[in-house]
């Protein structure tokens, strides 16, 4: 007999027939990004970033002398700790922090940040970066990288360039692939592969890349391109925030922070 399910197509349509995403963005548009440096006075550097509904706090301590066991002769040790607040996702988490997933992400963050810092300037020392995801609505890792960058700058730690991170995934419109930048949680959970790129756009260097699932080589380049463009767009926003912050600082004190 008649059957509604016949016509139903599997999967969520990520792009409407008018080419808009579920939240109303076009494929190449970032979510709304708001950020602020120096949100705490206690740490040496701090920052807060909102990418859409994903909200991350970052605090940086250091550089300070490294513990003997970890200390490196000619370079700095980055110690990064990533955690998610219990209230950060829709369903409340049972255990507040730690967990294997958080540890893995901490490792990945450490790697990305290490590539961006001028390590040789601080032999035998250590920099601690703490990241707390207050709300997770997709791209928490990327937002954490961006927050870390701002906090490091706030702490006055010299970097090779802005370290920016952005996600991208693929959607289908009329059978053609269309990459989506800065993937939201709803888009992530539609099930496609999400590519996360951390890069230093101004020196054209990629710091770290991750893929949530296998993605065919045919589509990799377009998705990669879109994520890289996302990083460049984010760099502009971060740079603006930094300049605004510097402006503020100037009015308060003359301690210009060098980048």
């Amino acid at each position, binding site marked *: 007999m008649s059957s509604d399910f016949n016509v139903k197509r599997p999967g969520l349509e990520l792009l409407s027939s008018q080419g808009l995403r579920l939240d*109303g*963005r076009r494929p190449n548009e970032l979510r709304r990004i708001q950020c602020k440096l120096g949100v705490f006075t206690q740490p040496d550097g701090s920052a807060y970033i909102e990418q859409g509904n994903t909200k991350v706090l970052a605090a940086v301590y250091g550089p300070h002398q490294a513990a003997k066991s970890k200390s490196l002769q000619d370079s700095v040790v980055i110690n990064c700790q990533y955690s998610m607040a219990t209230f950060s996702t829709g369903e409340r988490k049972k255990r507040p922090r730690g967990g294997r997933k958080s540890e893995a992400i901490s490792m990945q963050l450490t790697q990305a940040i290490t590539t961006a810092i001028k390590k040789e300037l601080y032999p035998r020392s250590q920099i601690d970066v703490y990241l707390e995801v207050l709300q997770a609505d997709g791209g928490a890792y990327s937002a954490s990288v961006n927050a870390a960058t701002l906090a490091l700058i706030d702490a006055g730690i010299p970097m090779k360039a802005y370290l920016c991170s952005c996600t991208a995934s693929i959607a289908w419109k009329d059978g053609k692939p269309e990459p989506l930048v800065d993937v939201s949680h709803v888009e992530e959970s539609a099930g496609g592969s999400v590519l996360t790129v951390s890069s230093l756009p101004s020196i054209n260097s990629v710091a770290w890349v991750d893929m949530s699932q296998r993605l065919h080589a045919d589509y990799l380049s377009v998705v990669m391109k879109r994520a890289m463009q996302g990083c460049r767009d984010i760099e502009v926003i971060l740079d603006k925030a930094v300049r605004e912050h510097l402006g503020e600082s100037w009015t308060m004190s003359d301690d210009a922070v060098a980048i």
Partner: protein
Amino acid sequence: MWTTKTFLTKTKRGNIIKIVREHYLRDDLLCGSAACNTCPHKDDEFVLDGKPESICSLYSYPHYLILDTNVVLHQIDVLEEDALSNVIILQTVLEEVKHQNTAIYQRLLEIIANKKRKFYSFVNEHHKDTYIERNPGEKQNDRNDRAIRKAAAWYETHLSINSVVGQFPKIVLLTDDENNRKIAQEEGIVCCSIKDYVENVTGFIGLLDKLSKNVAPEACSKDALYPAHLTPAQIHEGIRGGKLHQGTFRASRDNFLEGTAVINGFEKPILLQGHSGINRAVDGDSIAVEIFPEEEWRRPMDIVLEDKADDDPGDQLEEEAVLLKNTKPVEKGDDEITPTGRVVGIIRRKWRQYCGILMKSKFPGATRHLFVPAEKRIPRVRIETRQSDVLASQRILVALDSWPRNSRYPLGHFVRALGKIGDKNAENEVILLEHDVPHARFSEAVLACLPPNDWTIPEEEIKKRVDLRSECICSVDPPGCTDIDDALHAKALPGNTEDGLKRYEVGVHIADVTHFVRPNTALDKEAANRSTTVYLVGRRIDMVPDLLSSNLCSLRGGEERLAFSCVWEVDENANILHTKFHKSVIKSAAAMTYEEAQIAIDDKSRNDAIVSSLRILNALAKKLNRKRLDNGALSLSSPEIRFQIDSETHDPVEVQAKKILDTNSMVEEFMLLANISVAQRLAAEFPQCALLRRHPAPPPANFHTFLKAAKQQGFDLDVSTNKAFSKSLDAAVIPGRPFFNTLLRIMATRCMQQAQYFSSGSKTVEEYYHYGLACPIYTHFTSPIRRYADVIVHRLLAASIGCDVTHATLLDTKVANSVCDNLNYRHRQAQYAGRASVTMNTHILFNKRVEVELASVLAVKRNAVHVLIPKYGLEGPLYLPSDKFTYNEEEHIQTCGDIVLKTFDELTVRLSLDSSNLQHRKLVFELVKPHIPGFSVDIMEVEDSKAETEKDQKKRKEETPAKSSKKSKKK
């Protein structure tokens, strides 16, 4: 601009969580109107005319229409007519329609995609000036109505900017919600009901016929014939409290005043009787049922009761009395007593469009008529049309709209005419529609996905593949087959195995359909929805367009084609030593028929590469077959028939049972082997989402009558396992009656369950078992041109060997399950449609023909014996009058004097056609031998009819295969 939408939702574990979603508002969305002076439209972005011409006399000025959700949901047939244009479809409406009815949503999208119709979809929910937030306490519906009014008001103002007064189009809002109209009017929005609007449209004859009638709310009890249905809230409450039950209504085919409800947790379906018991439920509806206390339970009436009214009898329910008179009170100990109840509410209508014929009103010039559906389970329908003279001789399609309490019959509207009653095309159309077979011409969007007609394999594609063009590959199919899915090759390999056996390489090469049908394209979606190619007699409804099915994918002889290959190394005993899968390019050396291949194999003088390849295949196939049977595979049988079609009239002129050759089974064996090899690979690679095919063992109860009948013939069949069953079938032979064993297998087939597609994640590994084939795992890989299951299997296999992408929908178990549901549904419907087509052609064939033939008794029923004519593969009931025959329920025999009829008996019967009911013509079987005076047909009459038939047969024309390319090797 940025805002958030917050809502609460329940998780699987039952926790309530708050979800906050971002919602971006934009200022770059276009209004789509050529009259607009503000939006930065490009030339091809104007959808709505600058000065739309009005076709409605109520509004003589140029205007655009805005529709509310219910207008789209109820009046899609009106919208599909090429009459209303310059219509704005708001995103609010689009999303509500999508949510409520995906079929109508698709139809709406098609209208929007048709540029000529000038339907513009406006993204009001993301436009900064038209988005509104839901007020505290406001219902979602009210909020959406408000959003629609907001957009209507916005358009009006927006178009007026920089325009001369009176020179820009106005907005007319169409809504049937009186309250909404009232508010809109207060807000200064012009609005109208769809009925008022359409009734005043000029120049489009027939548009009014398509208007859906939704009248009289359930609460209105004036002139009510039926009890009121409960409200959704009451139903919900009742079900939760255990007083009511949710079920699916199944109308009886024989008795229009009886039906059943299938309810979870009840062994027997619930009996529903009489107008008030059924209370306007239509076959398929999801209903709420109240079950009576046990002392009020009854038994099914077991009588045939047709709605015989030949004109609309008005709003009365007179049959109730007849019905009650016939229902005797329950007798003690009767095991046919069935839980009985009544329908108290409708949870969801499952109405579709129905084929049938118009029963013209006896009053000349009347516009209200009755419609009689072809499906006997569906009640007659009242429709209004001014074209009854034309439609009376036509097959027509009608949609149901509503069934108010004061109307004896449901109300509906005319959708379209399908052609003259009895015309082959019209009748085929009926078969396709009634079986829900999607058969519209492929849309432009689908055709746009095709490669050019003169496509050839690009050089770089060849480089990516294994080049098998020099291998001697050939295909073997039924005559006239144009969609060649598979080709084979075999050759001896040098050296022996460790056991000193000869080694062979055998390859099965399957059309590489997924090279052309890419995931998520319009073509892919269409193929997924169709799920299968459907074969009617003399007509094939393709799953993918002809260019692919008959040309670019079809592995034609002598042409280079892309293939997906499964290549084995086997020893001479057909043991697999090694299996590999790869994409390849092949050039088939020959496309043969089964018969040609058989002749070539048998022809001792031939020794060329093709023949030696065929001989290796044939020898190996026999060993494979032996192994399978030894394992317990069942060799079953079903009578397949073949029509010879007149080349001019395309009418069938002769029918015969199909012949099976050695080569049929040769191809089949290798297809089975390939399917099994692929299934093993997929299950290992994708334990959660491999698409497989299982065949559950039949429940023992299925065999009950069958075993009894076999026993009467002196055979004790063992059905404990498939292996035992297969063995005892082999042993059940009666010397001198060669057809007996075939008959046994035909009947055994009917005890089986349907095989079904499933996703590996949804069943345990034990449940993967294929009972009929006696193998632990199975899938469909070998026919991607005509089965969508194989398309998915190809994609999975390609992903597993790393030569194609996986994509999200392919790997999602939930998605895989819903795909399987659709595949199973479509396959079942395709089978039924094929059978209905055979029946229809049988009727044409026997229209002016009477024949006397040998028949075998398949089953003995209360009032008939079910007979099969082996020569034609036709079957049907031979009715036995109860005044002559006595039925023995225990033994399943019918006796008349000293004549006993039992299963497997051979009779002589006369075949003719009864055309008294145009919609339900049927073959009539009458007994000739054994001769029963006063019942059997007279021999003299028989001789006469024979002479007539022979005359007829002289007119027979050249033979053309009917099921032109249907393959018999599907299992």
